[in-house]
């Protein structure tokens, strides 16, 4: 039987929303306070949902300890307590939460210890969040 196993992780990071293809004025218009040159930060929640058959021997879709290790290695350790703009992934890409969500999905999809990545959800604050699904 196919079921889904979900896990939530937290990481803290700073960022500045700024697009190379916009002028200084256009960046301020597009991103408002988020374009502050000194950046600002968030406590992000990364929610990962993994789908797959429930193994008869264990009753599990994926081993929680192994999943935690993979998500920490691929995503949490990479971004936690960093400036997202300095990560090579965001060298030429604004580190919006949409793009962070897509990046986390790409970093995780082939790195899971079992099952298939169903979605990655990133909560930037309690009031806004983004989900990236398997295409």
């Amino acid at each position: 039987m196919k079921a889904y196993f979900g896990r939530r992780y937290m990481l803290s990071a700073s960022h500045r929303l700024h697009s190379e293809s916009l002028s200084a004025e256009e960046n301020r218009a597009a991103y408002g306070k988020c374009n502050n040159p000194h950046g600002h930060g968030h406590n992000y929640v990364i929610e990962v949902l993994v789908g797959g058959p429930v193994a008869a021997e264990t009753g599990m879709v994926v081993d929680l300890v192994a999943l935690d290790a993979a998500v920490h290695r691929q995503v949490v350790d990479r971004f936690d307590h960093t400036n997202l703009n300095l990560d090579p992934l965001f060298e030429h890409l604004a580190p919006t939460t949409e793009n962070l969500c897509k990046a986390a999905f790409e970093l995780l999809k082939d790195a899971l210890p079992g099952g298939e990545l169903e979605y990655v959800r990133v909560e930037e604050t309690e009031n806004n969040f983004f989900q990236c699904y398997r295409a």
Partner: protein
Amino acid sequence: MIFLTRRATFSASHYYWNPAWSAEENERVFGRCSNRNGHGHNYTLEVTVAGVPDPVTGFVVDLKWLKDVIENEVMSAWDHRHLNLEAPEFAHVNPTTENIAIAAWKRLEHAVTRQGGARLSSVRVYETPEIFAEYRGEA
């Protein structure tokens, strides 16, 4: 199509154990969850039904009715129980979060289908705020 979700909470104890394995193997795979004295959680159950709102009432289903179904089919069987020892579906199946979601679906599906008007869409079970499983009725 509207998806309507009702949340309910229950508290229960459990442990993970595969009787075909040695004690060492159980401890290696399940870690602290293999302690045969059990441990417990405050579970949160989210039951989502899908349907079209009734033109007269505006309801997909009556929430009070859904609350009663969850109470009668799930809460009365699992709340303040030891899942391995007292819930028949876990006599020979590990009460993992995944299996709890599947078992809750099986307990609820018949009552929701019998009512008509809506179908059970998903059952999500939170073991802690950071650990959850979902079942959508897939084979």
